[in-house]
């Protein structure tokens, strides 16, 4: 399933790279839009929270970029930063892969959890990062998210989860699967205690993550164009032997089928969250 997102589409024609296409893009300085392939200064793109100024494509954000774009400066506190995997199945090569992604991303796991304030509204958060093992969920992610939910319950804070995940982490087998249950029970307990949980699904949110906490918000939102679904597109095409529509499993497709509350442009996310936090706060006194 995971590899579906990264699989190249077969072209039905031969393409000759243009002179421009051959130009090297200096790493770090420039950024190519994954939607329209236009090249931008990285800074320009970052200023626009990685939304393409030309085609509005929502490029992925790292967890810290996302947190930086939402939370009031100096208000956030990170939880359980030091949790990392033990390779429970003794899966060959798994630790090396984790180590590589730790160096690449500076994270110990594909989710950052903690608390902070958005426009003065305190909230707990779990922000996933697809650049760490495709945001896949294993024991560590499940534990961090479950703890964040419990902390939110104990501190009477709302909880906002930004998802970005290919699903369960294969290398931890059934233990990954059970994290779906662990996080879902935690949400049930949080919900019973009256906690507000908001889920914002970003590209991609599939498999075990979409079939657990991502779908369990009091409000479920998604960024435009985000891929969201249970089974991988290719598996479905093989099963039903027909071609699926282009917009299949996009945020807009889910909205149309009644599976989402709202598709929210990245520029609007902060104000929407602020409003919701105020509306669910105690009388909204901090508004």
């Amino acid at each position, binding site marked *: 399933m995971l590899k579906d997102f990264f699989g190249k589409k077969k072209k039905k024609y031969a393409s000759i790279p243009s002179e421009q296409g051959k130009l090297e893009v200096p790493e770090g300085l420039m950024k190519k839009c994954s939607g329209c392939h236009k090249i931008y200064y990285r800074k320009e793109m970052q200023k626009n929270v990685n939304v393409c100024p030309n085609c509005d494509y929502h490029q992925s954000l790292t967890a810290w970029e996302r947190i930086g774009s939402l939370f009031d400066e100096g208000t956030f506190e990170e939880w359980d930063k030091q949790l990392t995997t033990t390779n429970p199945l003794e899966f060959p090569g798994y630790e090396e892969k984790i180590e590589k992604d730790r160096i690449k991303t500076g994270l110990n796991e594909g989710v950052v959890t903690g608390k902070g304030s958005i426009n003065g509204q305190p909230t707990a958060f779990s922000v996933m990062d697809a650049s760490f093992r495709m945001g896949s969920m294993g024991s560590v992610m499940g534990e961090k998210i479950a703890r964040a939910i419990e902390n939110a319950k104990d501190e009477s804070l709302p909880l906002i989860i930004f998802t970005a995940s290919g699903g369960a982490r294969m290398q*931890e087998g059934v*233990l990954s699967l059970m994290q779906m249950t662990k996080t879902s029970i935690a949400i049930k307990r949080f919900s019973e205690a009256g906690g507000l949980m908001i889920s914002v699904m970003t590209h991609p949110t599939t498999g075990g993550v979409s079939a657990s906490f991502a779908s369990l918000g009091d409000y479920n939102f998604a960024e435009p164009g985000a891929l969201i679904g*249970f089974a991988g597109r290719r598996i479905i095409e093989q099963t039903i032997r027909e071609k699926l529509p282009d917009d299949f499993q996009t945020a807009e497709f889910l909205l149309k089928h009644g599976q989402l509350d709202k598709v929210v442009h990245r520029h609007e996310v902060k104000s929407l969250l602020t409003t919701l936090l105020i509306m669910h706060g105690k009388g909204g006194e901090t508004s």
Partner: protein
Amino acid sequence: MKQVLDFEKPIVNLKEKIAELKGFTEDSEMDLTEEITTLEKRLEILEDDIYGNLQPWDRVQMARHQERPTTLDYIEEIFTDFIEFHGDRLYGDDAAIVSGIALYQGNPVTVIGHQRGKGTKENIHRNFGMPHPEGYRKALRHMRQAEKFNRPIISFIDTKGAYPGKAAEERGQSEAIAHNLMEMAGLTVPIVCIVIGEGGSGGALGLGVGDHIHMLENSTYSVISPEGAAALLWKDSGLAKKAAETMKITSYDLKKLGVIDQIIDEPKGGAHRDVKLQAENINHVLEKSLKELRVLQSDELLEKRWEKYKQIGEYKEI
């Protein structure tokens, strides 16, 4: 025709040989009793050797065996007065999940389970035991009823996975499974889950949140099928056998990983060899589970359920 698995072939060959000798003895004057006795002893040793040393891939074959008993087979053996109820009240009735009430040792219980077919025709009707969202929603509807009327829930797990189809996605496969996980967490009646065949990923989990989770000896429970894992991890679905070992999917693996409570013994050669004996083995474990769970107050039950799942997973601090 009986399905013979690859690793069982030596046994079948030897059995054929014995039958041949027996036939020969009957038809002719020659007395081959001694040879037959020797071969029968050898057969016993061979069976013990083969069935006593099943490898993960062998167990996968066993879990998928055409004649392996299904949810309805066990319902027939273990419960009385089963009444099946249909429909999710939202969209339709999913034949890949059966659900209803029955008596267990004279007490009402709610029974749910994935339902495979045995022949092609029945399998098509049952969608090979792969549910759509309406199946999960039907089960949840009945589980809520169980809570209302204070009946324990017994869930049989036997699916390759939730159906990967267009309609399933449109109707919210993810949402349906996620909601079952969340709602099952809060049901104030005992839930006992028994994996009887394949426990395929989220599709299994959608009926699989419980106070006690048991597995038949030769059943499997995994995040992805061995074929899927092989294709994904090594780009070669032919490496399924290796994946079955690496992914740790047998009842023994899951017991070791702390995911399940008990392994339920199977008759020599697998559950399909003796459905009655298998049902009896399930019955013993179920009886014990319900006895333990029934005495708990509902808040105690829920707290224990949470504690159970909370401890699953391994991690360290650095």
